[in-house]
Each structure stands twice: as C-alpha cells, then as structure tokens.
C-alpha cells in the first residue's frame, strides 16, 4: 500500500538539514507553502539556499525564514516586494547572497534539473548584466547563453488536493513553480488542502504525477500571506 501522507508539517520537514538547498513554490503569495515554511522555521535548519521566485512580504512565510537568519543564499528572479524590508537588510549587510535569474530562465533551469538536462541554451538576458560570466554561443546566427539545470535537496510546494500516491492538482495561478519544483527536488514535500485515496482523481487531469512527490501533508485551511501581512502578523 503506497501512502505518502505524513501527519504534520513538522514531521514533513523534520529531516531538512543545515546547508540544504531548498526550492519553495509560489509566485508572490499564490502557491507559497506557508505552513511548511513556518514548520521549517520551528525546525531550525540554517545556512539554507532558498530557490524561489520572490522573497516573501511582511514578516511571515519566506520573509520570516529570511528574518530568522536561516538563509545564506537566495536564487531568485524578483526579491523586491512592496511589503518587505527583510531581504534588503540581509542583502546589504552581506548576510544573504543573491543570484538573480530571469524568471523564465529560473523556471527552465528548474525543469531541466528535474528532467536530467544538465544545461541548455536560452536567448534570455543576452547582452544584459545578467549575462556576465556566462558562456554564449550562436545558433543559426543568433546568440544564446548557456544555463545550467538546478536541483534541490528539498522542494516545498503547495497544491489543492493530493491522492495517497502523491498525484497533485493545483489551484489556478497558484500552480506556477509547483510542478517543475516537484520534479527538481530530491525530496518533494507538498502541502494540500485535502488528501484523497488513490483512484479518486481523474488520471487525465493530474498535473504532477506522484513519482515526483515524496510526502503529502494535509493543511485544511492554509493561511493567506496577504491577510497575515495586512493583520501585521509575524512568525514565530
């Protein structure tokens, strides 16, 4: 009997180690696995590399993990957020390093990592400061940059529903990085609103097949980052 459920967010993240490279799903608050992130703050792992599109807002979720000093490097496309002062301070102080990656290159590097592609060429960022130090090459008269696949020790993502085999459905634009990060995580942990038995999801509609998922944890009523920020919440 295959059953990938774990009982709690705390249990799901219990083996994340110091120095781990972690992908966090989400674009802004949509798809951000906030309960898993808070469990990770409680768990205490530090010196982490955070791979995510943004750096959170307010003092919850990713911003709280950063504020707790747990992140030594961020690989990210858009670390600036209206409501966050956390990342700018850490960046300016040198505590947290930044590798800035164009959003589409970030998504493709993550997919490549998950798909066993060590490197690929892309036209994005040619001639810009983000091309500095990167190999370039012409194909059919156009210049492209060499970019490398990205993998992570853990991927923490958020879905709408899972089955016990780890098949995942998402909610609207909260899907964003989830499916590719699920592919690229050596251990992929998904928080979902609901877990159903295998066979309850339509095999034609599954977005992330269970082979990419190691653990699912049911969080029935996940918090919304924007509501927490509006209420002035901070974690812990």
């Amino acid at each position, binding site marked *: 009997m295959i059953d990938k459920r774990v009982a709690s967010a705390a249990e799901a993240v219990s083996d994340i180690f110091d120095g781990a490279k972690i992908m966090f799903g989400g674009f802004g608050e949509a798809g951000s696995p906030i309960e898993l992130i808070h469990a990770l703050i409680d768990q205490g792992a530090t010196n982490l590399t955070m791979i995510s599109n943004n750096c959170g807002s307010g003092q919850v979720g990713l911003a709280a993990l950063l504020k707790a000093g747990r992140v030594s490097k961020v690989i990210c496309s858009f670390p600036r957020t209206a409501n966050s002062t956390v990342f700018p301070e850490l960046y300016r102080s040198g505590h947290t390093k930044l590798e*800035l990656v164009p959003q589409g290159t970030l998504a*493709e590097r993550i997919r490549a990592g998950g798909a066993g592609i060590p490197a690929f060429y892309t036209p*994005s960022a*040619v*001639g810009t400061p983000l091309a500095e130090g990167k190999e370039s090459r012409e194909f059919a008269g156009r210049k492209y940059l060499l970019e490398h696949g990205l993998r992570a020790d853990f991927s923490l993502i958020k879905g709408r529903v899972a089955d016990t085999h780890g098949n995942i459905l998402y909610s609207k*634009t909260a899907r964003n990085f*989830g499916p590719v990060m699920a592919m690229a995580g050596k251990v992929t942990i998904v928080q979902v609103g609901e877990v159903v038995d295998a066979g309850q999801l339509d095999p034609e509609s599954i977005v992330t097949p269970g082979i990419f998922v190691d653990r699912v944890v049911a969080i029935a009523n996940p918090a*919304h980052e924007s509501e927490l920020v509006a209420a002035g919440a901070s974690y812990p």
Partner: protein
Amino acid sequence: MTKPAVIGRTREEMAQRLAQDIPDGSYVNLGIGIPELVTKFVPAGRSLIYHTENGMLGMGPAPKPNEGDPELINAGKQQVTAVPGAAYFHHADSFAMIRGGHLDLCVLGALQVAQNGDLANWSTGEPGAIPAVGGAMDLVAGVKSVFVITQHCTREGEAKLVGKCTFPLTGLAVVNRIYTDLAVIEVTPNGFGLVELSPGIDFDYVQERTAAPLLRNP
C-alpha cells in the same frame, strides 16, 4: 499658479492609440502600469487573449469587491479573473510560450530605448539598490513584437529615447514600436522613425526631446 496645459497624449490616450494597432485574435502580454490600460481601449469587434506569465491564458479584469481569490493573480500580483476559454499552466510552460515565440505582442514600460531597439527597463543601476528582474528579459527575447509605452521624457525632462542606453539593458535590439505622449515611433534599421505625431505636437518638438535622430519619413 496654474498647471501647465497638458501637451500631447494622456496615459489613457497613449493606451488607446496603442490598442488600435493590435490585430484581432492576438495573444498579448501586458506589463504593469500604463500597459495594463490597453485592455480598456481594444476596438469593438476585436478579441484579444491575455497571457500572464505566472501561468494563465485568458486573463480577465479584476474581480468584483470581495469576490477575489488570492490564488488567481496576475504578474503584478493583483487579483484577476478568468474568461471563458482560459487555461492554467506551470511556469516552465508559460515561459515556453514566451521564449518559443508563441505570443504575438508584449507591451512594456521603459526607462530608456535606444535607436537600435535596445531596451532598459529593469534597473537604474543605482549602487545598493536591490536588483530584481522578473520576466522582462524573457519577454523581450521571445515575444514576436515588443511595444513600449512610456512618457517621452522623464519627470526631470531627460530623454528616454536615446542613442545608446546608459541604464543596464533588458535586451538587445528588441523594441519594435514606442508609443509616447508625443508620438508613435518605430525602430527601423536606420534608427527611430516617426510613425505619427500626437495631436497638436510638431516634429521639432519631438526631435528636441529625443536624444537621437528622428527620421521623418522612415
């Protein structure tokens, strides 16, 4: 004291002018700010399909108050809606659409546009600023046509249309057309070409505010 009279097109009029140039059935990605106004002015009888790079085709307008969903947002992280025929997809698929040349048009703001079409719109390069790029470099590298919509000059009166960009680039030779308060300008193999002056604006007025030659009959 009275405010100076408005010279040239307003933001809405710029968006309206640009909207005339988008063919029926186009797949369009609109940047944050003035580009978003374009949706209001699409001529009757044309249907456009809006792409948002966070993972959706068929994006509709903002929801009614209290009907929004924090998991249905656009690239500016604002709540939106889905129109009939919409589809959701993941980020790698979304940027495959962009990079693979499947989108017909993107409309972006600009800090500077050079006469060869180089675009700078993501960073002023100030020391200590937190760099953030998002999807702009992918969009300009991949989308079939790139339209810029921008004030012709900065608030300080400096030209944004220049010989060579001084700000960090977003992409090389990527801009096709520029819609400003003063004119519609095309990037041609020979430099900036005037397509059309805004009502009440004359050629010399635009040329004085453009830091590169403006071709009258490109």
